[in-house]
């Protein structure tokens, strides 16, 4: 418990602070990357923090490259603790060499100087091996800071057997989607839902305005502009408001036990999800094998193929490593070598960032879980139609947390989604300004 003495010390420290401010304090990462001298034949050890189950690919690398050994250390996924740990390690000057960083989080890591400038180590000549928009996620001011790994084009997973039972067509537009939702609820006796609506998942929710053509974040000069209240976003919010209010969707948080139970029992007759969730379905609802199919996202205008992306991450080389050249070599191999991609695809890591022909690639297979459908053809169409001009602000973690806090409150019956987003817009701008950035609302 604080005492008078503590108080005294605190006051003294406070008084001394201005004098100390200038010395010894660094913004962001405490240690900068430097290439260590390496004796011939000396083995380099790299540490890789990730939550993606890519141990098999790494084991293959270690077998093929005895001189550069990579150790995978599993950390909690992204904001559940992984990024917190990375930020703390950067601040402490003791980071791992490599880390899993999602595209939306790259600007935040840039803001703390947490990423190694890979252009200095010759990354730019690797560019041609990657899908351009994914590569661009790691490019800031013309220099490359991360090697892309995979993205998450959106699609509509649905239970073909249940749709047959209920004599339903797969919805092609959002209007049809709403009608299908009504019929499913009616014909299942209220037991089933067209999809889950996770109350707190801003990344998932964002994919719908993204598909509609909204841009939540853009820049003008050096100013960040936040726009959660444009007409397109409001239209999307209105649509989901109606779905939630009429109880046409199950308010289950994705990737939680009750969600998986819903997938197993048919409570969820479908799920609007990203390509990488194929593995989650397979792994968590094995009893429904053969009954799932994949269709494109429902459209706002019939006949369109508009799509969006949810998720996607890069292999980042964190600031402070002593082996940037070796780490870069590994990151490039991991994400472009066909043997590695095959293992990663099996692990469900997403849509490859490597420039591949679908035909003949590990993705081009009829899948028994999806009743023999070559479901990745759907995701290829989706991937090609993603609006790649969507941007992420350098406060996405925090600002999306505000957005989903607000959405969660609205889903629980306190206000509308439109209002939730309008409130979040102000918080979003505050977050950016708190970081010392120029920012304003679009309206």
């Amino acid at each position: 418990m604080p005492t008078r003495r503590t108080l005294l010390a605190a006051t003294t420290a406070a008084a001394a602070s201005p004098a100390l401010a200038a010395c010894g304090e660094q913004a962001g990462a405490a240690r900068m990357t430097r290439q260590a001298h390496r004796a011939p034949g000396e083995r380099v050890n790299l540490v890789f923090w990730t939550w993606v189950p890519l141990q098999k690919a790494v084991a293959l690398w270690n077998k093929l490259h005895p001189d550069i050994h990579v150790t995978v250390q599993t950390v909690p996924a992204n904001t559940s603790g992984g990024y917190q740990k990375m930020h703390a390690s950067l601040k402490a000057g003791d980071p791992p060499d490599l880390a899993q960083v999602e595209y939306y989080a790259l600007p935040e890591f840039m803001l703390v100087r947490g990423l190694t400038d890979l252009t200095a180590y010759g990354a730019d000549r690797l560019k041609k091996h990657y899908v351009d928009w994914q590569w661009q996620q790691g490019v800031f001011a013309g220099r490359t800071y991360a090697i892309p790994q995979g993205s998450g084009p959106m699609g509509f997973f649905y239970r073909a057997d249940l749709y047959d039972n209920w004599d339903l067509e797969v919805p092609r537009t959002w209007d049809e989607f709403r009608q299908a939702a009504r019929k499913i609820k009616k014909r299942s006796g209220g037991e089933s839902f067209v999809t889950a609506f996770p109350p707190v998942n801003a990344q998932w929710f964002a994919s719908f305005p993204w598909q509609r053509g909204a841009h939540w974040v853009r820049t003008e000069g050096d100013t960040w502009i936040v726009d959660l209240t444009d007409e397109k976003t409001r239209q999307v919010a209105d649509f989901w408001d109606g779905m939630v209010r009429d109880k046409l969707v199950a308010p289950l948080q994705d990737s939680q036990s009750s969600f998986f139970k819903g997938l197993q029992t048919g409570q969820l007759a479908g799920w609007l999800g990203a390509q990488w969730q194929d593995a989650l379905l397979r792994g968590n609802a094995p009893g429904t094998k053969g009954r799932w199919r994949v269709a494109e996202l429902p459209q706002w205008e019939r006949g369109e193929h508009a799509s969006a992306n949810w998720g996607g991450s890069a292999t980042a080389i964190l600031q402070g490593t002593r082996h940037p050249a070796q780490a870069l070599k590994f990151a490039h191999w991991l994400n472009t070598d066909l043997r590695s991609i095959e293992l990663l695809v099996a692990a469900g890591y997403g849509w490859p960032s490597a420039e591949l022909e679908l035909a003949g690639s590990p993705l081009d297979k009829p899948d028994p879980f999806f009743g023999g459908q070559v479901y990745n053809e759907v995701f290829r169409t989706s991937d090609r139609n993603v609006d790649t001009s969507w941007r992420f602000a350098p406060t996405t973690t925090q600002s999306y947390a505000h957005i989903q806090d607000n959405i969660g409150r609205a889903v629980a019956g306190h206000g509308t989604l439109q209002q939730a987003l309008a409130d979040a817009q102000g918080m979003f701008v505050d977050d950016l300004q708190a970081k010392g950035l120029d920012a304003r609302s679009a309206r």
Partner: protein
Amino acid sequence: MTTSGTDTGPPRPTGTPPTGAPPAGRGGAGPARRRRSARPDRKAWTFLAPFLAVYLFAMILPIGYAVHQSLLKVERSGPLGLGEPSVAFAGLDNYALALEQTAFLESFGRVLLFGAVQVPVMLLLALVLALLLDQVKDRWAGLLRATYFLPYGVPGVIATLLWGFLYVPGISPVTDLLGKLDVQPDFLGYDNVLWSIANIVVWEFTGYNMLVIVAQLKSIPEELYEAARIDGAGPWETALRIKLPLVRPALVLTCVFSIIGTMQLFAEPLVLKRLAPAVTSDYTPNLSAYFDAFGNANVHLAAAKSVLLAAVAMVLSFTFLSLVNRKRRDGR
């Protein structure tokens, strides 16, 4: 029942009161004054040194560092502010920013409400358990005491995970059973989750607080009970008029600890956050500071929030203590 003792107030011990009472007379005798010399001598410092070293290293330095950090800010330059950042003196900017955030201010309201309900409930429960245990024969008392104390040995994170399983609908046997009775409890809903957290905290800490009170009860001299018996006090009177006033210091202590603990509520909401949308990232002041520091990599704002939290906890603790002390002085 005789009334001789009861209507003249609680029986008072004839010796010194159990809690530090002022010396009977002012000025005292010469030798006594020399013994109470205000300045500790060299030997005293030697004995104090290990404590002071740890105290300096583990308390004063971190607090000073936090205050120092809270007065700094990062200045950005270059295109879109993504250029080389530098650290500059910020004055009280971070404090102003923290106080402008309504969600942060609301989190104080939330923990205060939480404390106002949870602390009395927990301490009352602890007191009742302690008094009951005092009545039980020794052989059972040890076993029961250990049982009640057991939850304190379970780390808060694990406790929350365990309770989480009991709260989540579809998984929890409790909601299943209640569902069969046509009650649909929503333990994790917006209006309920705070009390679900309170329930976890009560489960965790009642045993601990009970033990503190039990220890105080054990120190009550047997003569007092004898005197009370002679005066004709039954178990109820003994509990209310002897035990209760004499465990007061323990109650004050546990209450102060609980107030500080409440202000620092962290692990339980953090773990429950994954299950309950209602637990926002600004749910408690500590969560807010944590997400600023590590989710948002803004240690300076987080430091300011931590210092504010410490200040509020300190003010609350001292206010409580001075209220209690004044009451006691007035009571004399």
